[in-house]
């Protein structure tokens, strides 16, 4: 490698995307810890005034609200026509190019091909997993807030969530809420591992990108046909 490599820098994660990511990460961490303690209270108060479980539940509810606000904000942000954060990015399996990229990714993961994928925006396979994750989130919001609203039957929240009560019993909601947590934990393990792996293999600054917002690539042609993005501002120019 005598000739110097030329890296192109892309501003992929806008500030709201990064904020949502870290609010999600923090609230998932808090929700999992407090949720586990609510299910298996290993904590013990020394006197009836200690309110230990009360605080654990309070943190769980606040983190739950933080997560739903963050997720809904992120969904609203995806309505802007941005190359890396717009809603189109989330459905690579709908386009031919996207499916090809997913195939490259799968071949890499299953050690079939040595060709390292070099995704500039979202990794096409990861983004497909995020769609599943968001569905799990909404299952957790429905079951979680339906359980929470039971303290005030007939209240605004309980009335709004009536379909959930018709669909399943309270105990079933508890069950799905636990299963949902474990699915999210499995996702987190996968997510952290993949970021780590691709940071090493792609050499594009995968891990730091979620702090700084920038990713690097040596690719000459980055985007599939009909989709071009500016290096800094990242707006779409659709050629027809």
């Amino acid at each position: 490698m005598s000739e110097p490599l030329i890296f192109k820098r892309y501003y992929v994660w806008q500030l709201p995307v990064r904020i949502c990511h870290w609010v999600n990460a923090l609230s998932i961490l808090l929700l999992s810890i407090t949720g586990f303690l609510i299910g298996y209270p290993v904590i013990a108060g020394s006197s009836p005034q200690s309110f230990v479980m009360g605080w654990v539940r309070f943190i769980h509810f606040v983190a739950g609200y933080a997560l739903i606000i963050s997720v809904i904000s992120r969904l609203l942000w995806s309505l802007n026509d941005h190359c890396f954060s717009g809603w189109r990015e989330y459905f690579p399996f709908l386009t031919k190019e996207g499916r090809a990229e997913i195939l490259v990714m799968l071949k890499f993961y299953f050690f079939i091909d040595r060709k390292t994928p070099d995704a500039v925006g979202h990794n096409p396979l990861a983004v497909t997993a995020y769609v599943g994750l968001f569905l799990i989130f909404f299952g957790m919001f429905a079951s979680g807030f339906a359980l929470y609203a039971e303290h005030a039957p007939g209240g605004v929240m309980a009335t709004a969530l009536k379909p959930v009560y018709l669909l399943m019993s309270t105990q079933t909601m508890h069950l799905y809420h636990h299963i949902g947590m474990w699915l999210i934990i499995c996702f987190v393990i996968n997510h952290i591992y993949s970021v780590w792996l691709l940071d090493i293999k792609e050499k594009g600054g995968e891990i730091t990108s979620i702090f700084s917002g920038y990713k690097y690539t040596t690719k000459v042609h980055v985007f599939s046909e009909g989709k071009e993005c500016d290096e800094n501002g990242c707006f779409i120019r659709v050629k027809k």
Partner: protein
Amino acid sequence: MSSNKSSNVSEKTEQISGKQEFSIGEILKKRGVSRRDFLKFCSAMTAAMSLPASFAPTVAQALDEVKRPTLVWLNFQDCTGDSEALLRAANPTVGELILDILSVDYHETIMAAAGHQADEALESTITKYKGKYICVVEGSISMKDGGVYGCTSGKTHLEIARRVCGSAFATIAIGTCAAYGGIAAAIPNPTGAVGVRDAVPGATIINLPGCPCNADNLTATVVHYLVFGKIPALDSHGRPLFAYGKRIHDNCERRPHFDAGQYVEIWGDEGHRKGFCLYKMGCKGPATFHNCPTQRYNEKTSWPVAAGHPCAGCSEPQFWDAMGPMYKRLPNVPGFGIEHTADKIGLGMAVGVGAAFAVHGAISALRKDKDPAEKTKED
């Protein structure tokens, strides 16, 4: 205004009962029930209906004046536990309730008549007071194979229920079996048992679930009808809001221990003796809506949690299936063995995923993949 209202109601009830009778107040006086005891009963009923204490005189006045409503009591697939609970009700006593407040024209367990005589009593009541009598149903109704698994005097319960509940002013489904099918409807439900609501769609039904139903709630429902001339406000499961509008967990006397993180860990431990929260022993109070903590059973003596046993969730729909296992907080995962809880499966899943990625990482570390920069040169 209140006297107007209650006199209207008394006229209405007179119309409903259709027979000239003494008012409840007069009967009680005749039977030697003191005014003081009567007013105490009225206050207790006002409290049971979640009405403010200022309503007690209204209740007393209305009960003073109204005539006894006609009532028929049907026993289907049941254990007669609700009849037992009612007969042993301390407030009102058997005499007050059965003989004075309600005119029970048909009740298989306690009526003197038998056989054809009993059938005639039922038949004459439902034809004479069509659309005016109150029907109480105890027990679930078998629907499978035309309802042949539950018959009384040669007729299926389904047939009887459709006929009797269909022409009643209102039907009170007493106990969890009558309300939702209960124990008989638990998996595999061999008789196709359902609650009255599912067996007689379209009938006016008040569900009073519980195993057994708290007799005070039945009396309060009847008193509500006598005082206001209509059935009480119901929730989406058809239960009166005054009795089923709040969650047990939120009114529990052990709730401070829950919030403090003080739990019974094993039966008979120090926490159990001190009256700590039964959450970890599988209490279903957080999933059950009933007035047990405030109304209690047997002259407000006790209720399961006060006696040191976790709530079984007996008054919720799909009890027994949805509330099992009794001594575990979470239901079992369908399709897995009994000891496989959601969290054991979840933990196994997480460990599996972690191990799979650890192996993947080890292989990836040893494997020499193409550098993206190399690819650039190829391109």
